[in-house]
């Protein structure tokens, strides 16, 4: 049952082959039995899940069910859930129970989806390995001594281990695509402004974007149909009709122009990863697409620019965690300064503190122009790179990350090596473009991700391209050893 895709589950639910309660029970049991090994789910909402499953079954019986009615999903613990602890992977919010739902959560609720629980993540979404979580690292189901990627590592690992058929995630610099690649699943980061950020705990507001994760592009389309909405509670959300992402999945790729940026195949790219990606591009040619060599000359500047802008925004976004109104507060503060110092020193982990310090420094008097000002200029250049590229091509493809999943601790002491993990994903966030990752090969028994970058609001075309690839390949159907398929 856990091998069914969301598409298949919906079909089975509609045909009454099984009830939502049955599949919900099944996934809850899997999480309880298997997740001690992966640590991907940090809050299980069993009672709530069964209650919503029963309600979904009623609606299904009445024939008044929405698209995702009765489908069990997991939510990244960055999305606020009313009445359910929302920790953002941090000690700071270990005791935080929001009195409101994120818009994304509300959308799933209104659509009848069943929330199984909340997934583990890098603390405040700051990390590429899930090692920074207060709740301990998530293990990659393909190789439990390796990282699942981050920051949405919990969502990605849970789907790979068939603990849920789909999950929500967020992406600030690659946090959907990189773990999707490392865990062998499909994930999509939409255009900035497509999915509401209301109730999604902010890391870097101008880069953060929620998106779906599932095993297939077809399932991601179903989830995005539900997640994407215009929301007047988020000023940066764009008021534009949400298309049905499922309708064009079957379109032919004949004549599709795919740009291959030379900067994505340079030094630092694992040879096996490169081979897998090149083989996939050959598949696309077979499907009728045309490959076009392009250049995104400012790619190399994206990591340094990102590591100024994201920490700068984060340094302000995380100022609200001061021990005054909610969240962690140190014991017996002797004065106000002591309250701030100890609360934040105790509540935040090392990586979060590092980024707050970097961001604070970059915005300081005398440094602002050299860092933040320059980084904003670089951001413009990167946006121009893409604008020019999309004059010649319809989609851009390349590797999602430089190499397959690395071992725990391998990059823990070298933040810059860790930051380079996102070298191919970061520039789309800086430009606000949509990006996705889908499984395209295996290296040393570990999955490799193919990245697809689209023009603004071109998610339907990306999903179409991914779906067509998945019709002729079976990388997305592979399951980690031990996960019976």
């Amino acid at each position, binding site marked *: 049952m856990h091998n069914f895709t969301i598409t298949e589950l919906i079909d089975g639910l509609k045909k009454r082959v099984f009830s939502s309660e049955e599949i919900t029970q099944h996934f809850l049991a899997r999480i309880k039995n298997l997740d001690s090994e992966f640590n991907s789910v940090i809050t299980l909402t069993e009672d709530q899940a069964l209650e919503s499953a029963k309600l979904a079954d009623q609606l299904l019986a009445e024939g008044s069910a929405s698209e995702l009615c009765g489908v069990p999903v997991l939510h990244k613990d960055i*999305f*606020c859930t009313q009445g359910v602890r*929302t920790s*953002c992977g941090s000690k700071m*919010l270990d005791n*935080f129970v*929001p*009195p*409101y739902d*994120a818009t994304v959560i509300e959308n799933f609720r209104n659509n009848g989806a069943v929330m199984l629980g909340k997934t583990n993540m890098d603390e405040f979404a700051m990390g590429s390995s899930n090692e920074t979580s207060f709740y301990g690292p998530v293990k990659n189901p393909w190789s439990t001594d390796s990282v699942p990627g981050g920051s949405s590592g919990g969502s990605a690992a849970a789907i790979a281990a068939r603990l849920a058929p789909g999950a929500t995630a967020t992406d600030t610099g690659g946090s959907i695509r990189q773990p999707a690649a490392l865990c062998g699943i499909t994930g999509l980061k939409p255009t900035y402004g497509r999915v509401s*950020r*209301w*109730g*999604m*705990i*902010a890391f*870097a*507001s*101008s880069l953060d974007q929620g998106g779906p994760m599932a095993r297939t592009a077809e399932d991601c389309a179903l989830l995005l149909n539900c997640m994407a909405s215009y929301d*007047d*509670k*988020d*000023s*940066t959300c764009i008021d534009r009709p949400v298309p049905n992402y499922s309708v064009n999945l079957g379109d032919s790729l004949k004549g599709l122009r795919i740009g291959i940026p030379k900067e994505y195949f340079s030094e630092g790219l694992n040879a096996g990863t490169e081979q897998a990606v090149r083989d996939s591009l050959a598949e696309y040619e077979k499907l009728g697409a045309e490959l076009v060599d392009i250049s995104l000359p400012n790619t190399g500047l994206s990591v340094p620019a990102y590591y100024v802008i994201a920490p*700068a*925004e984060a*340094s*302000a976004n*995380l*100022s*609200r965690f*001061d021990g*005054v*109104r*909610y969240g962690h507060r140190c014991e017996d503060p002797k004065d*106000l300064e002591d309250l*701030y110092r100890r609360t934040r020193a105790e509540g935040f982990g090392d990586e979060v503190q590092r980024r707050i310090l970097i961001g*604070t420094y970059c*915005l*300081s*008097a005398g440094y*602002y122009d050299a860092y*933040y000002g320059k980084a904003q200029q670089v951001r413009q250049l990167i946006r121009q790179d893409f604008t020019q590229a999309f004059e010649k091509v319809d989609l851009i493809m390349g590797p999602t990350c430089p190499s397959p999943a690395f071992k725990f601790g391998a990059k823990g002491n070298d933040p810059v090596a860790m930051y380079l993990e996102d070298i191919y994903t970061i520039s789309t966030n800086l430009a606000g473009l949509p990006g996705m990752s889908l499984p395209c090969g295996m290296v040393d028994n570990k999955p490799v991700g193919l990245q697809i970058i689209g023009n603004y609001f071109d998610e339907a075309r990306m999903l179409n391209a991914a779906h067509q690839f998945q019709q002729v390949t079976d990388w997305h159907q592979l399951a980690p050893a031990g996960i019976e398929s």
Partner: protein
Amino acid sequence: MNWETVIGLEVHVQLATKTKIFSAASTAFGAAPNTQACEIDLAMPGTLPVVNKQAIDYAVMFGLAIDAEIGKTSVFERKNYFYPDLPKGYQTTQLEKPIVGPGIVEIQLGNGDTKSIRIHHAHLEEDAGKSLHEGNFRSGVSGIDLNRAGTPLIEIVSEPDMRNAEDAVAFAKKLHSIVTSLGICDGEMSQGSMRFDVNISVRPQGETKLGTRTETKNLNSFKFMEDAIHLEVARQIDLLEDGGEIIQETRLYNGDTKVARSMRSKEEANDYRYFPCPDLLPVVISDEHVEKLRKNLPELPDARQQRFMDEYDLSQYDANVLSADASMGSYFEQATKHSGNAKLTANWVAGELSARLNAETISLDQSPVTAEQLAGLIIRIADNTISGKMAKQVFEGIWNGEGDADQIIEKRGLKQVSDSGALEAMVDEVLANNQAMVDDYMNTDPDKRKKKLGGFMGQIMKASKGQANPQQVSQILAQKLAKML
């Protein structure tokens, strides 16, 4: 040495919107602590600001009223600092691109001169909450009330164009008059609706370079501001004349103890690390919208003053006093419509009524004496039914809710005796019964006799139980005494 004082003002004006600048919580004053703070005002994780369009319109209206450039694209920025009554750890404000650019405010001085004060800019921002420290709260702890957090403000920043306390007070009063006339602020100083920060420096007469300035913050009455300026100017001059040096610092003035103290020096000042708020888009205002607001601007104080001079033949002084406050202006017009006597009505509105309202610190809107009731009183003064002195008693009666002027006059038997026969008899009787006073009058040097008349008047008014028409009595008395010589 002769010293010249240089003053610039920063004025915080609370905008009279129903809801806060970035949330839907109420801005009403006086609610129980923390009952008007929603999840956005509390800076709960994942919440996002949405700008209040009414606040934008109000700021533009102020800009139009002072003939300023309107910022077609204005940008909200984050001003970062930690304080318990600042929930986000930053204040959302404007810096580089404010909504209102340079403008001019004309002020009138006591000697009738006018002066132009240049406005550097005005920007929109959110108010902080209130900290209640020991003495105002429980002992040993501080309390925080976030009802005020997020109340929209415009901060109006003047150029250093004022030269003494009189200029500064006239400027502050003029701003009060403008914002209340526009209806964008309730003008309730005691509730903090307008607060002044005064930048003060002194320099030797003739010097063109500015001296080192200090900033006295958060003055919330014209009187406190005037006193604080006198005190600070004297302190600076004393210090310089004793060979000392002014330290650039922020000072606090306590209006109750009339003592000012240093709060922090420039060295201790925060580095606010301003940067554009990524949660809010730049505010773009179309020319069309600006023109619509311009067309619908209510009558401004200067225009109203001129109209009062033209239409009601009031002196410049009276017209200025009555036009300063929109509600006072309309009260005056309403009362005059009924009384038909503009001059007398002006005297009563600006005099007795204002004094009484001030003494009881209630606003004109809550005046127990309606414009119609005051007009009724004025009609009886004008037709000589009652004397000025009686009028004060009648006013008191109306104030206390005893009824209209005619009812009170009737009930208290306050009719003035204007019958000349009766008055002559009264005068004769008093003269006959006070031979000593008459002799004294006759023996007095003719130039100084006038001073003696008061004694006779007192006796006559007493004999008439206060009901004699004093003007008539005084005429009759003068005639009788002249005849006796």
